[in-house]
């Protein structure tokens, strides 16, 4: 609400909310990946140079050609980088302190960015093995993976 009766020299401010309720079409590649997530399956796609990219891209990052060589990928892998978030923001996937991580799943040559639920920063390290914690109700969305967890 605008501040009424503001004295001269006071700065007027008003809250402004920008809100978009988008529904995006995902296309055949992302669509297939999300369909897999709904079924607790993860797939990557093989690039021209043989690298498996996960999550999959529609086109080869180097040559630009269309890709369609799908490869199954495990729902577990290794942390290649991470950062500890001591004070999660309201929009973050977890409400309690957690880590963001780049995770290279077994079978993939590239890493996926997701959240890692852990009790403390010393539980997380580069090289740690993690496994997906799947959401009970899945809909074909990146959040079908609730987060990853460190496994010993």
């Amino acid at each position, binding site marked *: 609400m605008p501040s009424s009766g503001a004295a001269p020299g006071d700065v007027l401010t008003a809250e402004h909310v920008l809100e978009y309720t988008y529904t995006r079409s995902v296309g055949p590649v992302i669509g297939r990946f999300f369909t897999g997530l709904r079924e607790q399956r993860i797939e990557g796609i093989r690039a021209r140079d043989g690298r498996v990219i996960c999550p999959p891209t529609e086109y080869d990052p180097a040559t630009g050609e269309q890709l369609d060589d799908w490869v199954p990928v495990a729902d577990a892998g290794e942390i290649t980088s*991470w*950062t500890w978030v001591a004070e999660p*923001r309201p929009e973050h996937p977890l409400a309690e302190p957690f880590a*963001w991580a780049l995770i290279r799943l077994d079978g993939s040559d590239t890493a996926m960015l997701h959240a890692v639920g852990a009790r403390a*920063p010393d539980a997380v390290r*580069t090289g740690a093995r993690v496994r997906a914690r799947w959401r009970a109700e899945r809909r074909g969305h*990146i959040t079908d993976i609730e987060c990853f967890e460190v496994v010993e």
Partner: protein
Amino acid sequence: MREVAVVSFAQSPTTVEDARSEVEILQPVLHQAVERSGIAREQIGFTVSGSCDYLAGQPFAFVMGLEAVGAWPPIRESHVEMDGAWALYEAWARLQHGDIDAALVYAFGKSSTGDLPKVMTLQLDPYYLAPLWPDAISVAALQARALLDAGAHTERDMAEVAARSRRDAASNPNAQVSGDTSADALLQEPYVSTPLRAHDCPSAGDGSAAVVLAAGALAREVAERPVWIRGIDHRIEPHALGARDLTTSASTRIAAAAAGASSDKIDLAELYAPFSHQELILRDALGLNGQTAINPSGGALTANPMMVAGLIRIGEAASRIARGEADRGLAHATSGPCLQQNLVCVLEGE
């Protein structure tokens, strides 16, 4: 290629601007840049701006900038939803056509009105990343961790960058942050997102800047020491963070080579590194040794008006060369998460 020079530069102090609108911040800066150029407004054949509507939270917010330009009679005008450094690239390219001799480049933005780390999440992959809402600080922290893991740099190296930047900013009246501090003192501070501490990250600030470019004979006519753009190039890396090597900057290296950066000495380098670890990556990519002064302005760690800071790097480097403090230098600008896209501009005084 047609010779194009920077003939003037103006900027506003980077602050958290409570009272003035973007246009009120921008207008005096535009006025100064045009006045200092010695070129009449009517002689400017092309005007191009850089800004981001998401900083204002309004579609087509960039159009408001034209109020400060005085666009009558109608002008040739363009805009990029990017840092003003890319607007300058477009102006340089436009001047190559040969039909006009002067261009005005400007950039503006108020980051303080919104939640900048959250706003920047919207630049990420909308399917795989944005729905998780990783903020810009966290994303940069992933790159910092990867750099430390690679072994060639340490948290102390990052703190040295931050300390040096703050000390140098003390002599920059336009910097938002400055101070006499040391790496030892900074390393005592807590993490905000490991391994980044507050001083490893930029503050959110508001500001604007403008540059006038002139070609060939006109540049020599109006400027005491035209600062020639000897080369300018920009490159972009793949979108997927997990598919990139975050510890090196191939796009910076390639852009610098294409711009001819190391064909001669580099007296100074203004690098757009809003995070301390990114300066380390950029110095490696550019092969800068101890001979080059890095960010004498204090750099983006001390003033980071989004969409403006890259143009300011070009302006700061050019100003020092114009004043005779240096002969040849480079300015760098970055865009996208973790140094995804990089522009290198090689500048040399007449």
